[in-house]
C-alpha cells in the first residue's frame, strides 16, 4: 500500500505566502488569548491544595460545596473530574493554615456528611515551591531552545537553526494559546508535554533540512525553491506516517490514560497537528528568506563529510558486505 506516490514535486514554496499567513494568524491569535485570558495554571505552579475524592455513587456537587463552605473555605472550586463519581476540590493557598491541615479538614467534613467518600489523591504545593517551579520551567524551556539551536547550527547552518526554532516556538505558542483559550489546566505534566513537543517537532524540520542538504549536493542545476520543494515532497510520506503513528499512541493515551494524562495527551495532540505543517511549511520559507543557498551549505557539507566516517556514525555496512 502506498498513499503518497507523487510524481511531480509539489510547489510548496510558492504557497509560502499563504502558509505563513495562516501561521501568522493562528500565532497572533494564540498570543492574544495568552495575553488576555492567560494560562489556567494548576496547583503545581500557583501553590494551593487539590483534593480528589470519589464516591461509590454519583456525587452531589452542591452538597459538597455547602459542606466546604460550612467549614469556612469559601473560595474552593468543586467540580467533577472524569466521571460523575469523581470530584476535584481545589483550594487556593491560605495564610496561617498548612495544606495538610486544610486537607484533613476537608476530608473530615466530607466524611461527616457522607461516610462513603474515598480520598484518592491530595496534592498540596506551597506558594514558594510553585514560584520555583515557574522559574525552573522557564529555564528548562530556554535551555531546550538554546541546546537545539546550537546543535542545529553546528550540524547545518545558523539559518536552519533560526528557522527551525521559530517554527518550533510557533507550535509551542499555539499549544499555550489553546490552553489559554479553553482555560484547560496547565500543570507540570503539560509542561513536560510542551517540552517533549519542542524536541519532537524539531525532528520534522531536521528530516527536511537533511534532505535539502542532500538535494543541494545532487540537484546541481536546480534553484533553491526547486530543491526545497523536492525535499518536502519526497519526505512528505514519512512526515505524515510518523505523525500518524505518534498520534495513534497519543490518541490511545487520550482514550485510556484517564484524567491525569488527559491534558498531557491533549497538549501532544495539538503539538502533533500543528507540528505536521509548521516544521515543514513554516521552517522552510523562513530558511529560504534568511537566504540559504548551495554555497553556504556546500562548504559545510564538505567539511562534515570529512568527519562523518567517524565513530559517531554507524559503521559503514559496506565494510561487512
Amino acid at each position, binding site marked *: *500500500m502506498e498513499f503518497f506516490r507523487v510524481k511531480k514535486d509539489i510547489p510548496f514554496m510558492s504557497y509560502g505566502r499563504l502558509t505563513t499567513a495562516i501561521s501568522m494568524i493562528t500565532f497572533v491569535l494564540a498570543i492574544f488569548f495568552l495575553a488576555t485570558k492567560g494560562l489556567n495554571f494548576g496547583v503545581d505552579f500557583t501553590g494551593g491544595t487539590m483534593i480528589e475524592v470519589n464516591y461509590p455513587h454519583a456525587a452531589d456537587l452542591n452538597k459538597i460545596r455547602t459542606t466546604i463552605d460550612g467549614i469556612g473555605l469559601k473560595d474552593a472550586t468543586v467540580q467533577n473530574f472524569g466521571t460523575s463519581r469523581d470530584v476535584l476540590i481545589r483550594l487556593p493557598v491560605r495564610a496561617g493554615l498548612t*495544606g*495538610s491541615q486544610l*486537607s*484533613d479538614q476537608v476530608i473530615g467534613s466530607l466524611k461527616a456528611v457522607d461516610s462513603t467518600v474515598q*480520598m*484518592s*489523591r*491530595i*496534592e498540596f*504545593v*506551597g506558594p*514558594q*515551591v510553585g514560584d520555583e517551579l515557574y522559574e*525552573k*520551567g522557564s529555564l*528548562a524551556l530556554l*535551555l*531546550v531552545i538554546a*541546546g*537545539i539551536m546550537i*546543535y*542545529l547550527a553546528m550540524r547545518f547552518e545558523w539559518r536552519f537553526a533560526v528557522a527551525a526554532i521559530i517554527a518550533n516556538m510557533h507550535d509551542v505558542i499555539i499549544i499555550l494559546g489553546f490552553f489559554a483559550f479553553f482555560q484547560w489546566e496547565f500543570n*507540570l*505534566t503539560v509542561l*513536560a508535554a510542551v*517540552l*517533549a513537543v*519542542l*524536541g519532537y517537532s*524539531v*525532528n520534522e524540520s*531536521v*528530516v527536511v533540512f*537533511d534532505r535539502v542538504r542532500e538535494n543541494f549536493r545532487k540537484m546541481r542545476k536546480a534553484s533553491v525553491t526547486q530543491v526545497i520543494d523536492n525535499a518536502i515532497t*519526497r*519526505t512528505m*510520506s*514519512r512526515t505524515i506516517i510518523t505523525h500518524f*503513528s*505518534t498520534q*495513534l*499512541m*497519543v490518541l*490511545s*493515551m487520550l*482514550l*485510556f*490514560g*484517564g484524567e*491525569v*494524562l488527559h491534558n*498531557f*495527551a491533549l497538549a501532544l495532540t495539538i503539538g502533533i497537528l500543528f507540528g505536521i505543517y509548521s516544521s515543514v511549511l513554516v521552517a522552510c520559507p523562513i530558511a529560504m528568506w534568511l537566504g540559504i543557498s548551495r554555497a553556504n551549505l556546500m562548504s559545510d557539507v564538505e567539511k562534515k563529510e570529512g568527519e562523518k566516517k567517524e565513530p*559517531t*556514525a*554507524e559503521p*559503514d555496512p559496506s565494510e*561487512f*558486505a
Partner: protein
Amino acid sequence: MNRYPLWKNIFVVFMILMGLIYTIPNMFGESPAIQVTPAKSTSKVDPALLAQVEQILKQEKIAYDGIYLDARGVKARFANTDTQIKAKDLLQANLSSDYTVALNLLSRSPEWLRSIGARPMYLGLDLRGGVHFLLQVDMKAALDKAAERFVGDFRTALRKERISYAGVTREGQTVQIRFTSASELTKAKKIISNQYPDLTLKDSINGEDMLLSASLNAIEQKRIQEFALKQNIQTLHNRINELGVAEPIIQQQGADRVVVQLPGVQDTAKAKEILGRTATLEIRLVDEEKSDAMTLEKAAQGQAPIGTDAFKDREGSVILVKKNVVLTGDYITDAGPGVNNQTGQSVVNVTLDARGARVFQQVTRENVGKRMAILLIEKGNTEVVTAPVINEEIGGGRVQISGMANTQEATDISLLLRAGALAAPMDIIEERTVGPSMGEENIKRGMHSTLWGFAAIAVFMIIYYVAFGGFSVLALGINLLLLVAVLSMLQATLTLPGLAAVALTLGMAIDANVLINERIREELRSGNTPQASIHIGYDRAWDTILDSNVTTMIAGIALFLFGSGPVKGFAVVHVLGILTSMFSAVVVSRAIVNWVYGSRRKTTHLSIG
C-alpha cells in the same frame, strides 16, 4: 552486502537476551511480605536476626514462601495477606522494640534472578499509593535556638570565672551581655573569645550600659544549619521507623529541604501527625514566689512577671514557670509508656543520660518541697503536662511523668520523646497523597494506553509496509523490552508520567523505521536492486535518525535537569527510550532484515507494500 558479521549478530542476540532476563521480574507480580528492620542504628542486621525470625515463624507454624536477609533487614514472603498480617502481629510481639516490623510487597521472581540483580521496576508513589512530603526546615529557628543555648553557656562561664555582669539577653541571633564596669567587660571578652572562637565579638557603650555582643560568624552559621538538617533527618528516620513503613525514603533536597516518601501508607493523617510534631520536653521550676492569685490572673492575660513564662496545664489553669530551663529533651535516652503502681494512672517513664541525670539530681536536691513543671512543646504550643512537688532528691536519671490521660497518650508522648527532638521546626511545603486503589488504577491506565497504542501502530505498519512493517513492529517490541529492562536494571522510579513517556517514546520510535522504510521504497523506485536499496536505505536514513534523535534528546536532558517529581520521571524514561529506540530501529531491525534477505542470492522483490 546485507550481512552482519558474526560478532554483531551475537551482540544483537545478547542484548535481546539481557532484555528478556531483566524484564522477566516484572511479570511475576508481587506477594505480601514482612520486613524486619532495625529501629536504631545500633541494632545489627545479621544472620542471627534471620534465624530468630525464622524460628518465631516456625514455632507458630506460619508458612512462608521465602525468607532472606539483605542490607536493610530480613524479608519474608507469604502466600496471602491473612498470613502476612498474622505474621506481622506475631513478630512484633516477639521481637524486642529494637526492630520495626512493616508490611511490604515483594516480587515473586525466583531467587536466581534476584541474585543477578534482576529486579522489577521500582514503582513511584502515584502507581502504588502512598504519601510524598517536602519539608522545609526553619533555619532561622535553628539559629535562634543555637543563640539561646549561648545565653545559658555564657552565664555559666561568667559565673564560674566570678565576673559580675548585669544581664544576658538574646536579640535575634546576637547574644548581648551587659556590664557595669569596663574592666569586667574586657575580662569577659577574653574568656568568651577563648572558649568560643567561632563567635564574632563586639563591644559598645550605650550611656551607662557597657555591652558585649556576640554573634555567629558565617562559617558557624553554616555549620549549625547543616547540623540542624542532619539531626532533623535522623529524627525523621526514628519517627518513621515507629510508623512501620516498608522502604521509606528520607532525603535531603537542596540546602534546607527534606523529601519524605512513605509508600503504601494508608493513614496519612497519622503519618503527618508523627512527622509534623516538633515535640520537645522541657523541665523547668515553678516560680512559687510569684504565684499569687493576682499575678496569675495578670499572667493569664499575657502579662507574666519578668523572668517567668505563663503556661496552661491540662485543666486549663495557669502556671508560672521560670524562664531558666533545667533540662531539655536532648538529654533523654529512652522513654516508654507505663502504669504507676500506686495510682494505676498511665505514665511515661523517661531515662536521662549521665549529664542529664547529674543536673536533675542537683536540681531536685536544691528544690525539695517545690514544684517542678514538665512542659511538652509541640508546634510552638507549650503545655504543662504535669507539675509535681519534688519530694526528695531523684538520682539515677529515671523520671516518671504522670498526668497522661490514657495509655494511648502515654504511648504517643513516649514515641515523640524517644524519637528525639527536631533541631529546628519543619513545615510541610508540598504534599502529594495517592490512595492505593488510585495507584492500581493508574498502572492499569498507563498499561492500557501503551498496549492499545502499540497494537494500533502494529496493525497500521503491517498493512502499510507488509513484511518491512512486520520487521519494524518486531524492532519496536524489542525496543519496549529493552526499555523495560533498562528501567528495571537502573531501578529508576516509574511514575504515571513515566508510563506516558514509554507510550510517547514508542510512538516516536517508529519514526526511525518509517524513515528507513520510506528510503528503501524510494531507492527501489529510482531503479536500484532490492539488496542495494536495503543497503542504501539503512545507510542514508542513519544520519537523519541521529540528527532528529539528538534534538529530542536535548529536550529530554533539559527536562531531566530542571524537572522535579513527575517531570523528572518523564524525562528519565524519555531519554532512555530514545537511546533504546535508536539501537532497536537501526541495529536490531537491520539484523532482522539481514537475516531474512541477506543470505538470498537473488532477491527480485521486497515485500514493502
